[in-house]
């Protein structure tokens, strides 16, 4: 299992477009990917789940991956956050 904390750096937070981006990336991997915030853990392969996290600007989300390609998956998801989902 791999895990890492990430901070939301784009102003708008995780709205529909970033959520779709996360889901798209997550679906490229075999392993289970979870995002956790305030004790809520949701599957990163579900758009509505990610949006319901209510991850606003500057909030911290824990990314957790578990499975065969967990390392690559974690790296790819974290990179999305670091690139601010290609926003502002």
């Amino acid at each position, binding site marked *: 299992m791999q895990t890492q904390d990430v901070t939301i750096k784009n102003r708008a937070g995780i709205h529909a477009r970033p959520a779709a981006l996360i889901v798209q990336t997550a*679906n490229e991997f075999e392993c289970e990917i979870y995002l956790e915030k*305030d004790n*809520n*853990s949701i599957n990163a*392969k*579900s*758009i*509505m*789940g990610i949006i*319901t996290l209510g991850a606003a600007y500057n909030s911290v989300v824990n990314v957790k991956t578990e499975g065969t390609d967990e390392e690559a998956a974690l790296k790819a998801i974290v990179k999305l956050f670091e690139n601010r989902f290609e926003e502002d």
Partner: protein
Amino acid sequence: MTNMFTVLDLLDLDLKEHNELNLRCLCGRSGLANPIKEQDLNRPGLTLSGFFDGFQYNRIQVFGKGEAAYLKKLVAEGTLDSIKKFFEFKIPCCAFTTNLQPEKEFLDFAEEAGVPVLITDLNSSEFSRRLIRALNSIFADKKVVHATLVEVFGIGILLKGASGIGKSETALELIERGHRLIADDAVELSCVNGNLIIGRGVNDIAGHHMEIRGLGIINISHLFGVGAIRDSKQVQLVVELEEWDSNKVYDRLGSNETTIDYLGVGVPVVTMPIKPGRNIPIIIETAAMNERLKKLGYYSAREFNQNVLKWLEGQNARAAYYDKNNLK
């Protein structure tokens, strides 16, 4: 819980009809961020009379007619010591019922101590009942699961399964057939009374929206009308969708009940293999009706087997009778 429940959250609770608390804040706004950590109430009558032993100060303090009348008397007599001492404790908030207006002196102390004073038009017993009900659901054990919750023929069914297996599509067809959606993709389960699991959407923003691959995000209540949605529902059956595995043995009789544990409560679960040509929504409808039959005390599989046993016994007796009388 990392999320604290504060007095402001209490005022902001969106409860409806018979659950409404009708609270307003009179003073002590600086204390609106006070956390409420206890789910019980306290009637501070004894405390106001000067007896502070065992004072449950960390609970919401409810002032009814008795307490309010006593306050009035204290203020009239000018003996404010116990009120002063009362506010030396770290009280989350005070609530006056039946629209009883507290004395100005009392409000001054509250303002100074940073304790919000709330007022409601409900009477004490009704307010206590509603408040305890609300606090019970707020402090209940909670868990968010990746699943879809629908109500089919009055039975709350939680659809589970791996991403992309078709939970949302199944739910969509059930809605199309006149059933209701509670939440899609992320369902918050809470344990009420220690024996019921209630499911609802995680928050109102995503409530009753669905993501269908190829379509995007759709709004169920706008598309299908308010009749197609529901805010919360008890989870009475879990349907686990999975890809058909020819090596796995699926339940063919339905006579042994398996349950899945959520927050310490066992919920009946059925595993449903998916294969092209299997009409899952219709099978789920049937499962829901079967579940209702069980609630009425009729177990199809068990009853059927009992009939088979009876019949076999009859055949047996018949054969024995023929044998004995050489009637063959």
